């Protein structure tokens, strides 16, 4: 769980030389309507200086609460938060060297763009010329030139977002916190802002903690992703690792799409297991917890599977239930002996799609499948 982030850490420390954020057994319990609710349960995390880490999970998984405890807006019910080795639990939000970018941006509506950006610097009692210099820098790097005197409500969503980011950046925080900052933007702008945030974060090398429920966002921006479910951390790993080697059925299901084929390992050794699925015996990579004879689930990503039509009247492993055209690819749902399987065929001609009721076989590269345990 506390694996150091690769590569990124080394390149980032040159800027700030600090910003290591550690969470130890962090917990949060509320008195809910139905009794005691555990919103965050024993979260451990070691974020390296300059690392971009994303908390990802469905609504109510505790990711926002975790972020707000780090910011100091919520008191932890247990555990510790440390910044550069020092306990910060007892510091109020204003004394923590962090800055947050809010989902609603939370720009001060009575202040202009420039006044918003300068707000934190004025509180730090910086000299006028220092403020002016920092402002110029922020305004230029965030493409806000010419908007300094506008009011927040005179800006577009993307511009407001950039002001919020600039306002957070100028105070030179050790940690940047993002609370679903892109969820109010339209899809195109969202993509542009992802790249923008990542570029700025790399440029300044500031440790960042980002909360989202959008897996695409998490995968495309993060050094590491923390998948959370029901207050617990399910997995902490690089996006690629999480996609190819999910730690649980929940992670596999939440990240991307996956078919789960029931499978009982006949033999397990050296991280590989032999299973029989769809009437074929194959050897696949397996989760360390997989053991011989225990019910497991074989994860097959739809894009890693292929359909082979059965010609000359024979029967295959399944029958096409439905095909859906998505532009770049066609999705097929196939009724098989092992349940309904989804297969994505990239680049197929929609006019030659297989029709309903066609007999097919489903094939996939066993090395790109992954055997998980049913808990």
């Amino acid at each position: 769980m506390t694996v150091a982030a690769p590569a990124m850490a080394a390149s980032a420390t040159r800027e700030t030389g600090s910003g290591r954020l550690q969470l130890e057994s962090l917990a949060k319990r509320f008195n809910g309507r139905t009794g005691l609710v555990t919103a965050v349960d024993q979260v451990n995390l070691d974020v390296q200086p300059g690392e971009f880490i994303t908390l990802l999970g469905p609504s109510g998984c505790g990711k926002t609460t975790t972020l707000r405890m780090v910011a100091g807006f919520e008191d932890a019910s247990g555990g510790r938060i440390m910044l550069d080795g020092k306990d910060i639990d007892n510091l109020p939000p204003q004394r923590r060297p962090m800055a947050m970018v809010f989902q609603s941006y939370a720009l001060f509506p009575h202040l202009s763009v420039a006044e918003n950006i300068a707000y934190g610097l004025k509180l730090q009692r910086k000299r006028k010329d220092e403020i002016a210099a920092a402002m110029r820098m922020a305004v230029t790097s965030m493409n806000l030139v010419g908007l300094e005197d506008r009011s927040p409500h005179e800006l577009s969503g993307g511009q407001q977002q950039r002001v919020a980011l600039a306002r957070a950046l100028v105070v030179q925080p050790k940690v940047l916190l993002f609370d679903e900052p892109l969820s109010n933007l339209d899809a195109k702008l969202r993509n542009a802002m992802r790249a923008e945030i990542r570029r700025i974060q790399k440029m300044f090398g500031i440790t960042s903690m980002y909360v989202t429920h959008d897996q695409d966002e998490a995968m495309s921006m993060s050094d590491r992703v923390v998948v959370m479910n029901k207050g617990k951390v399910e997995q902490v790993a690089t996006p690629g690792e999480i996609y190819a080697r999910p730690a649980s059925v929940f992670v596999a299901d939440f990240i991307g799409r996956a078919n789960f084929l029931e499978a009982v390992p006949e033999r397990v050794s050296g991280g590989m297991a032999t299973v029989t699925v769809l009437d074929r015996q194959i050897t696949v990579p397996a989760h360390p917890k997989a053991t011989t004879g225990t019910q497991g689930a074989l994860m097959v990503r739809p894009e890693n599977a292929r359909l082979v039509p059965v010609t000359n009247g024979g029967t295959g492993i399944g029958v096409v239930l439905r095909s859906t055209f998505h532009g770049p690819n066609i999705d097929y749902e196939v009724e098989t002996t092992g349940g309904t399987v989804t297969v994505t065929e990239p680049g197929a001609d929609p006019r030659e799609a297989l029709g309903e009721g066609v007999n097919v076989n489903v094939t996939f590269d066993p090395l790109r499948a992954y055997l998980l345990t049913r808990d």
Partner: protein
Amino acid sequence: MTALQPDRDLATLPTVATGRRRRKADLGIRVLIVASSVLVAIGAAVPLIAVMATAFAPNALPRYAEFFTSQVDLTILRNTLVLGALVGLCGTALGFLFAFVQARLDVPGKKILHVIAMMPIVSPPFAVATATVVLYGRRGVISNGIFGIEYHIYGLDGLVFVLSMSLFPVAYLGLLGMLRGLDPALEEAAMNMGAGRWKILRTLILPLIAPGLVAPFLLLFVEAIADLANPLVLGGDYTVLASRAYLAVTGEYDLTSASVYCVILLVPSLAMYFGQRWWLNRKVRTTITGKPSGSVHLMTGWGRWPIYGLALFIAAIIVSLYGTVIVGSVTKVFGVDNSLTLDYLKEVVAGVGVEAVLDTLTFAAIATPIAGVVGLVIAWLVVRHLRRTAWLLDLGGTLGVAVPGTVLGIGFVLAYRPDRYIGDFEVFPSLVGGSALAAGAVSIVLAYVVRSIPAGQRTAVGALSQLHPYIEQASTDLGASPVQTFRFVTLPLIRPALLTGLSYSFARSMTSVSTIVLLVTPETKIITSQVLSAASTGRYGVAFAYCTVLTAIVLAGFGLIRLVVGAGASLHRTAKTERQKEQ
């Protein structure tokens, strides 16, 4: 995109103590909490406790048996409740009439109607009482002079009339907000399904508004039974608990039975007041949705004219009453000898009255900023910074309006008239009475503050609830302490609420009677108690002159407050750009 997610909802729930040390609250916050608690305790809690202590002392207990067996006392209780109920009904009806005309009828002159409906807020209630006697009494200029009736106005009918006319703006403002908050899309939906304007009124608007009529009814009930000035001027034989308690103190010097009357008055007052708050806080029917869409369709049929006519008639009565106040202050005996004279006004602004005018103005000027700021601070603490104890401070701040002024005044007398000694050392000087600190000025200012806090507190709570906490969190996150955040972010954003709060505080201070009449000393004179004595001795011209001057001062005060605080410029900026965007 779901703006509110379950884990967000959780984030707003109170934390449970889990044996871990909680971070200590910010020093500035603690100072504010202590300061506002102490003020509320001294100004409201201690006097109330003093009343309770006297009313439940052993020698007071037999009085309850006497009260509930005495035919006279039971009649007083019944009178009080009947008055409350009738004023509640009439005032709410008047408020609804004006709100409906304002929000839903396509008629001319709505701005003027609005101003007329707001007039009673800035004038002392007995201005209306006195004018009513002059216009509609036995020898009334209108009742007798025009219609030749010798109407006996003293009693229940007169009281209901005067109190409804004086208090209905509260109901009007509440109902106007509610009618405007109705999502026009609902009406458009009904129209779309084929309902006509009147059908919509009957089947949609009235059922939706109905629960909203309860709150103003209860509020008016509380204000009506708490009122002291009108029963004294206009009550005649119709005695109510407030005036009975007042007479027990001033006429019989019997503080024990005064306290007993107070407690009996407190029961319906507090029950109705907190019933009203509970009713408003229920989340049963959410008619006021986030952003109303569609456009309001005003009523245009012939049916609007009778409603409009009724509102005009009421408005004419209001104008006649206030017109009488002004005209009465510059005529010898209005209606009898209509020759112009400036004697009364001279008496007030350049003669014996000048002392009262200056004292009142000074006290109100001291009390207003304190009350306005404290109300705002209490609201901010309650909404943002306190969790389990929030209700307590909220309650404390509200006592100034929930507790009838007479009760509070008697509480002041009981709690603060004697000097408090521990051994030979004077720990708390007398605040009330002839030998009081600063001739009673301290207690008068304190009473003004406590009576005025709730107005500012209520508007500020409303404004703060509209302001997303993230805005303030963004400020703390950038390094501002909570108090800095309040100064640089919260305060500028809720400035309109501060403006309203200060204005209300000033108006309430200047026009406050029921608490003050028990606190004035020979050295400190207050306009309202001067009016009371002038009106009850039949010197109407002087009473009118005082009222005119008082109203002028209140209006000037509004202007000054607006000038100092600024007229909510941030709101105007928003409005302007919304329009610019449309262009």
